[in-house]
């Protein structure tokens, strides 16, 4: 396969996401402008100009109408995906670390970092209300003595949110409950949870952690189902929508190079979802991979790295012919 290299960012990539049909690929980096690309040929459709700091998280709604981005400039912006104009600008007191649209696209959830002065919050806004209205849900995470949130996704329907924390906890919050304590709280990882991604039909989700592991959980009760072990920090994990495969991306940061004996680049690694066995790898990034995403048709995937490039890979026939022998 000949990957398409997307060179739209000046700094390391933080997140990439496909829209529902997979024709558009959104990317954000530590520079100020999220980009959108046609995934078929890598043509850049546009950039969303307006942030004034690193963009940590992005999301696109079901119909590709609204695009959301959370940034270190203490704002979470909702954009018109088509024109790149800001529709709504939610001010926060801290950098926005993770964000996501609900299934309907009417609710926008984002989480903020905790600092010395300010607490870490989970905030849910209704896009049908105005900017000044108070949030639909507001949970003070630091107030409950929980570590800060580093990644988050919507759970089933629009009732729950799943968060991954700095010290390896994963929690499920149910908004239907009157008390704001999390419904489930586990600590499957020993280090920071870098990424959470749902599978196609929202029955399970996968976590990626700096403790070298990636784990698969049930979406309803966050029960641990599978564990994928590597020997490098895992920055991102994605589940194939068509096959029982899992894709992991990661690698050690340059800062940590002295801490581990093994160096070198981290490949995009393919694991079998059920057997937890690694069966293939693709090495092409220079430096660690920060985010991986499967195309919704499962025939291509994209990886984005610390090197600032996004690579769109159309998988070869050999990948589809490959099958693990069962006997």
């Amino acid at each position, binding site marked *: *396969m*000949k*990957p*398409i*290299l*997307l*060179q*739209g960012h000046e700094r390391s990539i933080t997140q990439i996401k496909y829209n529902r*049909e997979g*024709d*558009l690929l959104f990317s954000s980096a530590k520079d100020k*402008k999220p980009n959108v*690309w*046609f995934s*078929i*040929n*890598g*043509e*850049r*459709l*546009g*950039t*969303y*100009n307006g942030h004034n700091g690193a963009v940590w998280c992005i999301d696109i709604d079901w*119909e*590709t109408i609204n695009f959301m981005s959370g940034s270190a400039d203490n704002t979470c912006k909702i954009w018109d995906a*088509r*024109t*790149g104009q800001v529709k709504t600008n939610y001010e926060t007191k801290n950098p926005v670390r993770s964000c996501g649209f609900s299934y309907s696209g009417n609710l926008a959830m984002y989480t903020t970092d905790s600092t010395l002065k300010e607490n870490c919050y989970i905030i849910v806004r209704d896009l049908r209300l105005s900017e000044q209205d108070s949030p639909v849900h507001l949970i003070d995470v630091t107030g409950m003595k929980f570590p800060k949130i580093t990644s988050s996704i919507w759970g089933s329907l629009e009732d729950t949110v799943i968060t991954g924390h700095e010290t390896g906890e994963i929690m499920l919050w149910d908004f239907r409950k009157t008390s704001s304590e999390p419904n489930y709280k586990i600590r499957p990882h020993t280090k920071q949870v870098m990424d959470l991604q749902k599978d196609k039909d929202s029955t399970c989700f996968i976590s990626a952690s700096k403790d070298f592991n990636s784990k698969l959980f049930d979406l309803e009760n966050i029960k641990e189902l599978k564990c994928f072990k590597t020997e490098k920090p895992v920055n991102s994990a994605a589940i194939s929508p068509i096959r029982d495969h899992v894709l992991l991306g990661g690698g050690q940061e340059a800062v940590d190079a002295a801490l581990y004996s093994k160096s070198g680049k981290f*490949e995009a690694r*393919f694991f079998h979802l059920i057997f937890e*066995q*690694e*069966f*293939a*790898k*693709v*090495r*092409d990034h220079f430096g660690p991979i920060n985010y991986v995403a499967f195309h919704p048709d499962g025939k*291509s995937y994209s990886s984005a790295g610390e090197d600032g490039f996004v*690579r769109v*890979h*159309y*998988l*070869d*026939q*050999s*990948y589809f*012919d*490959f099958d*693990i022998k069962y006997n």
Partner: protein
Amino acid sequence: MPIVEQSGLNWAREIDEKETEIEVNEEGYKKVIEYKTENEKKYKITNVFRVEKVRLPKSVAQRKEWKKFGDSESDAPGLNPATTIITDEVLMQFLTKKEEVEKTETPAPASVSAIKCRLCKGDHWSAKCPHKDILEAKLAAEANQKETAASASTGAYVPPSRRPGANALTTAGKKVDFGKTLNKDDFSVRVSNLPEEATETDLQELFKPFGKVTRVFLAKDKTKQVSRGFAFVTFSNKDEAQRAIWGVNDYGYNHLILKVEWSK
């Protein structure tokens, strides 16, 4: 992946727009010939595109018409070489097969008496041989005798590479090297006279009965993606490859007689 029309050369088009020729042939290939003049030299640029029709959801088709915005606002339709680059071929490396082979083969020699004394052929290191002193001296004397006898018997010039001592060394060395290279490539067979519609999976099926097929390479036409009539099939050991040659050579496959031989 469909090749989408590139128009990164739009500046060339502006100069000589009239001289662009477009041909579309029956197989769905579009040929675009452009002429441009640069430094008073005229260049002819021929691009061949494969035209593919794809059914898309309505929403996707609509999004294709979206105007570019932000930093891409001034980009022409098509790829902008500043932001999009088609990179070199990258291969997906499959692991399980290799690892399985390593796992099954490596422990075997380590388990049973891998240690063999060079002197008395006993089950211990040569350095720790109880008969070391006696045997070593004996062997050395024997070797010396042979050498002198050989060189003395003919009297003619013997090149260093042919001399008995050297000979033993080189053959031994060669044997070792040979064994190493054999591990990788030398169990492949070349299959030729394949039908055009043969695929890699067909070959897998065909050669599976003879042993573990570690790799199949089917030469394909660059544009049409059909078989060019030959392929290389790699087995995990020599016997299997040899059996495959005996088994499939002259085998009738889809009205063609296959030819299978050792690949060189």
